[in-house]
């Protein structure tokens, strides 16, 4: 009896260890220290970025080339803790939902592995299942993930230049408020502008797709 119980406990422990290893182990190493996300979280964001924005097509830049994982990492670091937890839950859910909603292939074909370990075709099938689900919560998971990653993709200077949407330089007039408020974190004594620097309001000359791009979106800036 004792031996049977021990065997059962061993089997249970092995299964639990296997399950945990499938959740927490085997993620690729990363070269630089992320601001907020863990290795597994970065892996799922990278996998989702490549699935949502694969190489080629109407915009040559891929999700990975657009720097989506590092963008999302910075974004998560910048939001308040409660929202940060929700975003991390979202990534966890995406990564492990394929256990409950398996991608094509099932257990034998690898369809029940975590999202970042699926083949590209299986990832596409998994995302398609969420997008077209009749269950609102599943659709919500997908639209939330796509929203976060799309913001990252469309923040890439390379993508914006390719679309002709990168911002232009604008000469900012000096108004009364510029003599009152320092930059965030600075003291008022840092305000270098004086009354003599005030400029007249612009005449409303419309802007258009001419003139230099803003420096941080110009060609030499790497995404």
């Amino acid at each position: 009896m004792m031996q049977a119980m021990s065997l059962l406990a061993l089997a249970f422990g092995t299964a639990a260890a296997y399950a945990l290893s499938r959740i927490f182990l085997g993620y690729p190493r990363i070269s630089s220290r992320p601001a907020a996300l863990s290795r597994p979280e970065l892996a799922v964001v990278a996998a989702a970025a490549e699935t949502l924005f694969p190489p080629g097509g109407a915009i040559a830049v891929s999700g990975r080339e657009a720097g989506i994982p590092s963008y999302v990492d910075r974004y998560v670091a910048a939001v308040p803790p409660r929202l940060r937890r929700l975003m991390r839950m979202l990534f966890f859910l995406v990564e492990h939902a394929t256990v409950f909603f398996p991608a094509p292939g099932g257990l034998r074909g690898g369809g029940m592995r975590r999202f970042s370990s699926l083949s590209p075709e299986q990832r596409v099938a998994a995302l398609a299942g969420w997008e077209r689900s009749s269950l609102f919560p599943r659709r919500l998971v997908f639209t939330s993930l796509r929203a976060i990653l799309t913001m990252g993709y469309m923040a890439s200077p390379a993508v914006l230049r390719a679309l002709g949407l990168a911002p232009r330089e604008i000469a900012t007039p000096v108004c009364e408020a510029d003599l009152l408020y320092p930059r965030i974190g600075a003291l008022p004594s840092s305000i270098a502008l004086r009354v003599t620097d005030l400029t007249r309001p612009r005449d409303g000359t419309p802007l258009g797709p001419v003139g230099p791009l803003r420096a941080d979106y110009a060609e030499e800036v790497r995404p």
Partner: protein
Amino acid sequence: MRPPGEVRVFAQYGEDVHEQADVVVVGSGPGGALVAKELAEAGKEVVLLEEGPPVTPQDYAWDGARSMTRTLREGGLRATRGYVMPTMQAICLGGGSLVNSAICVRAPEFALERWCTQFELPHTSLGHLNTHYEAVEKFLGIAPTPENVQGARNLLFKRGCDALGYSSEPIPRNVRGCRGSGECFTGCRSRAKQSMDISYVPAALRAGARVLTSVQIQQVISEGPKVRAVVGRVVAPFTGRPSYRVEVRAKLIVLSAGCMATPVLLQRSGNLANSSGQVGENLQFHPGVAIQGVFPERTDPQFGATQGYQSLHFLREGFKLETLWAPPGVLAVRTPGFGLDLKRRLAEIPCSATWDAISSCHFSLGTVRARRSGLDPALLWHLDERDVPILQRALWVLAEIFFAAGARKILPGVHGVAEEIHSLSEAEPLRAERLRPKDLVCGGNHVFSTARMHGDPRRGVVDEYGKCHDLENLWIADTSVFPQSPSVNPMLTCMALAHRTAHAIAERV
């Protein structure tokens, strides 16, 4: 006139803050900034408090997500529960005026008449508010958007409306010298938008007001029928980390913290001013739906006034139509699909226009509640089935206008309807299908009514001048006092009511 006042910023605080004033105003958005200026000019000693920092053009972030984490509460990721809908509240000097699209439209006469009759507010008709509207319009230089900065995406809307016989007009906005940069939502680099931080707040300072930024008020202190002080903490920009204690004693307190924070502040202050039970109730939005249309030619939608054209044709049916532009990353989150399909659709943005509809949705109500800690509210709200046909009708009209304007396809963004529609006949499901609330993707624009005005103290929190029924010297001046939707964008009506509130205070106190 007092000598000019001063602004204090986060880097200047080195110890606990104790101030005294005739009037303390909590919140520097359109309601609070205006009240501070008017009362300072009336000779009152005024302290204006703002939780966020002043944001200068050097601090603006053009990228949508980065801008949201800097200027909006909860990183711009606030959403309602019940029916999940994103909504926003600013945290910066000037409040929402820094990051809105400057739309200043008077509430229509029929909406204000409804307020008067349904909420026992005999002095709140358009006739009574006209002088207050005029004062704000004059100060901010509000005028219809000129044609030379409309850009193609706005003028196509006019073309579509003209073809169908629907009325449309350039949107009146609080701008001076707009160049059509389309950057209203991330801060106007052209310094054209007359947001509160560059208009009413400097005027308040000139009249002697003191402005304390990075101060989070956590409680209103009361004694019997009077309030006597507000207390809170200095908080760091962006992180909100609290440090020094702040107490401002005043003879009179005006709450202008916004429709989602004012009720939380009252709830956190011992359920203050709530004998009616209406504090935090009646939460209403203008839920918005939008359609992206793709045209055969380039529209260069990033140029032109952010929201330059509107149609008030359907106001009595319960919705208003507008043109729209936003940072590309924000606008693109509604683009359907993924993979190469998604990239193809994103590549069509330079040939597209996005137009939206905001709806009054009188049946859809919710609540604002304080959370266990902090000032971020718990929002519970449901999109009522009875309001869905209004939004559905608005989507259909938008589809009509797009195809009348020459669009080659539209992306309606409605679950259960084709992702791309190439003709009005293909759009028929938008009219014929019975859509459910969760088929729609709505944005929670404009928030009202969580401390509503009502002539009957048993049914409202404030009277029609903004004074709390329960307390002698507590007033509210933000959109929480709206008894219900004004049918159009609320900023100008909020400011007109705040103007009346300020003058009522100056006369009575």
